[in-house]
């Protein structure tokens, strides 16, 4: 049977600008500020409109016609600022580029943001698994911090890098493969 092929983009919303809580003088770690929850006023309908406007701005009517066919937000979690966006397989790059060019959330909220696509998947199952994996990672990290212990994995990586970070010892550094994996998985 012939199916309509889609791509599922797992998107994280990051908040690089300082949040109101931090401005008020509370000591919030910067890592948490970047991964702040999204305001409740922002819902899936607005996200779709945001993406559509981005495509219309970058690619015009052609892009709208091509990408709009199956464009949909299939999952949205304001707490972790994570979304899964479905789009046609041939034109997922346009949707991705539109997300890259977005700089802030629409009018009533008006917060500067950075959209980061963390995974491109061909099936919604794999996209959901990725979301769950990331959420689990955040929870374990938060628990470690609560207990007062340091993040074991991150600390290990830091130590390993520091060991290598003699002034000019750059000759043996390994490329991080994560990004390319997410690319290859998209096939």
């Amino acid at each position, binding site marked *: 049977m012939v199916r309509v092929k889609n791509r599922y983009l797992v998107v994280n919303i990051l908040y690089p600008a300082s949040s109101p809580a931090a401005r008020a003088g509370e000591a919030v770690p*910067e890592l948490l500020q970047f991964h702040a929850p999204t305001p409740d006023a922002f819902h899936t309908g607005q996200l779709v409109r945001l993406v559509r406007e981005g495509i219309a701005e970058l690619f015009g009517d052609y892009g709208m016609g091509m990408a709009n066919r199956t464009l949909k937000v299939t999952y949205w979690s304001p707490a972790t600022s994570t979304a899964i966006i479905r789009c046609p397989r041939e034109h997922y*790059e346009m949707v991705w580029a539109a997300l890259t*060019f977005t*700089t802030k959330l629409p009018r009533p909220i008006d917060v500067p943001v950075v959209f980061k696509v963390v995974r491109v998947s061909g099936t919604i199952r794999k996209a959901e698994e990725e979301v769950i994996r990331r959420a689990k990672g955040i929870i374990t990290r938060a628990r470690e911090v609560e207990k007062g212990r340091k993040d074991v994995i991150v600390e290990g990586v830091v130590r390993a890098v520091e060991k290598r*970070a003699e002034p*000019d010892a*750059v*000759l043996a550094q390994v490329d991080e493969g*994560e990004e390319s994996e997410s690319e290859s998985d998209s096939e």
Partner: protein
Amino acid sequence: MFHDLNVPWTSAKELQRAVVFLDELGYDVVALTHSYGGRLPADLTSPVPNPLPFPTPSRLRILRRCNIFLTDAASNFRIPQLQQQYDLIAARPTDEKTLQQACQSLDVDIISLDLSQKFEKHFKFPMLGTAISRGVKIELCYGQAILSTDSTAKRNVISNATQLIRVTRGRGLIMSSEAKSVLGLRAPSDVMNLASVWGLGLERGKDALTKEPRSVVEFARLKRQSYKGIVDIVYGGEKPPVQEKVVDGKAKKGQSKDQKRKAQDSLDTTPAQSGEEKTVSKRQMKKNKKTKLDAEV
């Protein structure tokens, strides 16, 4: 390892956020840029303090870079002095003539064009090709395309970037942000996708963030530290004195062996001579015998 080789140095407070955010996005090497416009000042020391006035993530490697605006081809850019102060030197040509100068003769590491303006002439491969073959990379900055509200600037960035990609055939390109604020920074994968939308392809896009900038950084480092830019000693090793003696003894042994060999050689050569002598003597003996026999007969 992802590189972002162009983060403008603004103020310490804003930049701290940018640096932490870059680390969060997954970059490993970041270059802080200071731009020189017009005439160079007498004092060339970098305004970027060393060490930085804020704590930096330990994973991140921070470099210092300067941009020189090439407004007049005749002026002296004092690049050797700049090389002592900065890790990377980039040239920003403003017109055709200075672009040619930067491509052909100027001893810089990166050529960074202001993509938001319109160029009168098309880029030509022979000119940019010489730069690439010399190891000078050409930089595409996406920050202005993302941040500017002016749509003509955005259009110019996209058209110039695609032109450069076409002319250089995807070789020797670097993608970097040149973001005036934190909002213009994007994750490496997003930049790679942008490159592929602009016609560079995902693989080349990845090279533009990993391989090419790394080669620039290492090449610049070698230029500054190594002997004549060719030989660099990474770890020379240590020589405890005791071991040296042993080495000396070995050398002596080797020498004595050599001498022996020489002696052997001389022996090898002498037998022929001595053999000749022997034969001669045998002949002589035979002759003697004959003469003796003759005498007896």
